[in-house]
């Protein structure tokens, strides 16, 4: 018999796993690190599920947890974790889709972690208001940063 918390957790992960995975992929160097980050995000969601206000936007909350976890853990030494079963390996698979994703990954990874998070949210079609909520900066700051990021990406592609 599952508890309410477990059911709630399962529903959240089912609904938002793609979002969590996308963030983890963009902040990892290999599949193993994706797994580490993904597990850590799940643990933080599990720990924070009781304090989550149901009236708040769940997607914003998921993005905030995922990005905070990835940005903070990326700098830390990797912990040894149990392997999760994964069917795909974007870093090694040789199909056309994986190549496309690697191109995206290479571009995004030229940016600093904070800028990387902002551009990722923008690519995920999040509004400026939502990006400002998730990242904890003003809407104006989001638009200025995005402009700079686009400029930086432009310079990189010209090079």
């Amino acid at each position: 018999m599952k508890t309410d918390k477990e059911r709630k957790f399962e529903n959240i992960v089912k609904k938002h796993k793609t979002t969590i995975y996308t963030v983890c992929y963009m902040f990892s160097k290999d599949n193993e690190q994706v797994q580490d980050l993904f597990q850590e995000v799940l643990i933080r969601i599990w720990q924070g599920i009781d304090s989550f206000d149901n009236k708040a936007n769940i997607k914003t909350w998921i993005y905030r947890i995922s990005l905070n976890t990835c940005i903070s853990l990326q700098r830390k030494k990797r912990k040894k974790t149990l392997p999760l079963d994964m069917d795909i390996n974007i870093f090694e698979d040789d199909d056309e889709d994986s190549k496309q994703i690697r191109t995206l990954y290479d571009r995004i990874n030229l940016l600093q972690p904070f800028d990387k998070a902002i551009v990722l949210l923008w690519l995920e079609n999040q509004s400026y208001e939502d990006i400002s909520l998730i990242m904890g900066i003003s809407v104006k700051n989001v638009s200025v940063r995005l402009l700079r990021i686009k400029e930086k990406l432009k310079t990189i592609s010209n090079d």
Partner: protein
Amino acid sequence: MEKEDKMMNDELMQMKKQIQILHNKLKKQQIVNEKIFRNSVKNSMKIFNDMDKYSLVVAFILLVLCMSVSYFLFDKILYSLIFFLFVICMETFVYFYSRKEFKTNDIMTNDIVELSKKILHMKKIQDKFLAIDIFLAIVFGFWFLYDWVNGLGHFFKVNVYGGVFGLVVGLALWWFGYRRQQKILKNVITQLEQITKGANQI
């Protein structure tokens, strides 16, 4: 300049398409959130061990109390000593067994089927102890009253009321603790069953 901007826009659009490709790939991905469940098992077993530790301390205090009372009652409550000694031995056994078999690292890494078997075994041991405990507690209850009647003479009434009250409260607390521990073990077993059956795939 206009051409450059168009190129940039094309590139950003391409990035948006690429992220969509990533989404499509990830939608097919299944997650076995085993670690989460193992963490939950670990936390449950910690509560279980803590409860056992507190029971052990309470049983020890009661034993000391019994010994001091028996000094005044001219060794009339020998049976109480036997009862509490048994409780202490039982709690000590469960505590150390649990500590030995369910180390935090083992819960996180051991084979999940083996872990389930161990917890099931632990639940059975607790059930056996309960059967012995109930038998001893009934005999103890009667003996306890008998000892007090003989040992206290004219203070009989007041002390028997106190003794019976203490006994009822003690048994209620003990029953509550036992039920709670059994519930923890039952939940843990259910969770482990879900993991082994792959029911927790998201």
